[in-house]
């Protein structure tokens, strides 16, 4: 055991002390934050306010529409914040500004000449667009929105909803229903999602849950690609120089292999921890900027599951990479065999959608037991809905067993592969090596 510990320490220190580790660890979160927030900021900053003209036959209608538009744009922001755990119920709508400033003018000159003039204004960028809301247009149901670019989908929906609201009220008013009665009639029914978790109710929107799964998948992917390959390279280097022989004269190949995997794993763990701490430090201002992040409600159970499946998933894929390094002789060959690791990972991601939608289906249950998919699929199931404990336990046991099994095989191949230089073994030979009880 002491030997294994020495190897773990060596592998860990060798990687952690490099400049690239420091750069990656400290810089990456910075880069990622910038990448995620900057585009949004850029989109809103520097944009002058959108200048819109609403053309109606009567000024009152125009004013109503204008008010309604502004209200609709602000409310849309509020809807996103609904699930914030500490959302202040008394948040003043005025405190929340719409993402983009809108200046809305009312024009009651609904003539063709005016339409042509407005068109010119749009073209000359004096205004950004106008809404043709004359009574004729309303009556014939053909209201047009003219602008230089196709309005963003969300924007158009909002506008159309707001508009419809106003028109409905107008029509009702014309038929004798006043605004108060119309309010009663038209109050929408909102459906609130409450999840039953072990008899306790918890609220949470689907968006936040998906984010938790996505973060896990992204992190796992990155960790595996960065460090898994590093394990493969390290195995190849040791084989191709004689360092492995020297080590084998002191330690067993199992100690060497496991030590290396755990050492590299510790590096990944360190990096993740640093990032989590950094994220925690920067999260609060970040959440203020991007409201959707505050949707994350992370229960401790999910956190534990995340840690467990992340580590095990990382170990599994890295061990497979090590096995590839043990079989091949050059890095090129190793890269050709990479698909063995990448395909299960990619398949897991593909299967995420069905699993998340029907986590209880028998097919999904068994899929999440398969050790190559478990890290992502079982975790996804835990996030979305808590599977029975025996299922989680079973998948963990199978996963750990598989990892151990591959490690043992790997150690054997590693050791024997070393001693036969140059020749790349074919499959029957590899099987024979594995059968050698002890080298």
């Amino acid at each position, binding site marked *: 055991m002491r*030997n294994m510990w*020495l190897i773990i320490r*060596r592998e860990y220190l*060798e990687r952690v002390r490099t400049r690239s580790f420091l750069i990656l660890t400290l810089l990456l979160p910075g880069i990622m934050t910038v990448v995620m927030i900057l585009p949004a900021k850029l989109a809103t900053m520097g944009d002058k306010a959108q200048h819109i003209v609403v053309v109606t036959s009567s000024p009152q209608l125009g004013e109503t529409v204008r008010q309604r538009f502004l209200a609709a744009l602000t409310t849309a922001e509020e809807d996103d914040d609904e699930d914030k755990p500490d959302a202040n119920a008394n948040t003043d709508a005025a405190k929340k500004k719409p993402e983009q400033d809108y200046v809305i003018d009312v024009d009651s000159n609904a003539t063709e000449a005016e339409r042509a003039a407005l068109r010119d204004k749009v073209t000359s960028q004096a205004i950004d667009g106008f809404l043709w809301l004359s009574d004729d247009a309303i009556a014939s149901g053909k209201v047009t929105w003219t602008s230089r670019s196709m309005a963003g989908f969300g924007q158009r929906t909002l506008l159309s909803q707001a508009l419809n609201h106003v028109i409905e009220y107008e029509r009702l008013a014309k038929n004798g229903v006043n605004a108060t009665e119309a309010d009663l009639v038209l109050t929408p029914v909102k459906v609130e999602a409450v999840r039953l978790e072990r008899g306790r109710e918890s609220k949470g929107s689907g968006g936040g849950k998906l984010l938790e799964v996505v973060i896990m998948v992204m992190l796992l992917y990155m960790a595996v690609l960065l460090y898994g390959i590093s394990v493969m390279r390290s195995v190849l*280097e040791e084989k191709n*120089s*004689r*360092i*492995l*022989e*020297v*080590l*084998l*004269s*002191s*330690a*067993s190949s199992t100690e060497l292999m496991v030590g290396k995997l755990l050492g590299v794993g510790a590096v990944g763990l360190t990096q993740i921890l640093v990032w989590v701490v950094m994220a925690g430090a920067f999260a609060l201002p970040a959440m203020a900027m991007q409201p959707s992040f505050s949707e994350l409600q992370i229960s401790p159970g999910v956190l534990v599951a995340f840690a467990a499946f992340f580590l095990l998933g990382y170990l599994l894929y890295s061990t497979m990479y090590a096995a590839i390094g043990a079989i091949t002789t050059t890095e090129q060959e190793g890269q050709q065999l990479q698909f063995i690791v990448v395909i299960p990972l990619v398949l897991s991601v593909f299967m995420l959608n069905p699993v998340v939608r029907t986590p209880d289906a028998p097919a999904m249950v068994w899929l999440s037991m398969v050790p190559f998919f478990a890290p992502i699929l079982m975790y996804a199931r835990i996030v979305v809905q808590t599977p029975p404990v025996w299922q989680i336990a079973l998948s963990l046991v199978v996963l750990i067993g598989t990892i151990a099994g591959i490690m043992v095989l790997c150690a054997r191949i590693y*050791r024997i592969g070393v*001693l*036969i230089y140059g020749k790349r073994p074919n499959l029957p*030979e590899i099987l*024979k090596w594995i059968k050698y009880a*002890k*080298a």
Partner: protein
Amino acid sequence: MATLQTPIARSSNPAPNSGAAGTVVLSNVRKCYGDFVAVDNLSLSIQPGSIYGLLGPNGAGKTSTLRMIIGIILPDSGQVTVFGEPLRREHKEQFGYLPEERGLYKKMKVLEHLVLLAQLKGLSSAEAHKRAQSWCERFELSAWTGKKVEELSKGMQQKVQFIGSILHDPKLIIMDEPFSGLDPASAVSLKDAMLELAKSGKTVLFSTHRMDQAEKLCSSICLINHGRAVLEGDLSQIKAGYGYNNVQIKYEGDASFLKETRLVQSFNDYGNYVEARLAPGADTQELLRLASAGARVSKFEVMEPSLEEIFIAAVSKPA
């Protein structure tokens, strides 16, 4: 190819010296890689405190044999005995191993690397540091202890490798082709180090195909070809068994005595001197009289056969 006067008298596979506590004893060891037989029914015995040479052409099975002694690979059949016991994991701490090419982590710092190697052999960190420093001083590497291995020249790396193999004070030091690639000065240093180790009671086992080195250093040898032991045992005894067949002659003048096939079977002219192989049954004194009759003889030396000749003769014999 000239044959030596006395045929090889000893058997190819002497019984291992199981009476004395030989440091290393191989008994009928066999190792195959698939269909290829690397080591075939090999037996040898290495006494403690000696330098033992494992000789043979490339591909003879030397490296496989060494690895089996170290315990990196296990024989398919036969027995490896070290320090009187069958080879066990724990014995590894008593071994020092110097592989044929350098086996060092390129990116590791020299001192750290040495300490790691020593710790893997069971030394404490403090002790390992102390010893590593003093060895580095001795080999004039003190200025380099903090540098990465890849920053050192090849010769310095070889020194580091050597230090790494003896740092933990092993009883048995095994070296695979240690002289290959060494310049003469380094070769001498290594030779001195090996002699010193042997004198202090350690056992040194090395493989080589440089017969001249083996001749100077080894007290016992094993000559391997095609995985089998062709010769094994005490070097001087082996040479004695081959008899004195060669004469080194330095002369000026009439060289006709060399053509006397009754006395001289063949000869090699090395420019400065001639090495003559005696014909079977020839008398050295008669050759001397003949030579001095027609030329001025400045040197006439009856030589024991060189290991190189023995090697070539033994290797070319039909198996």
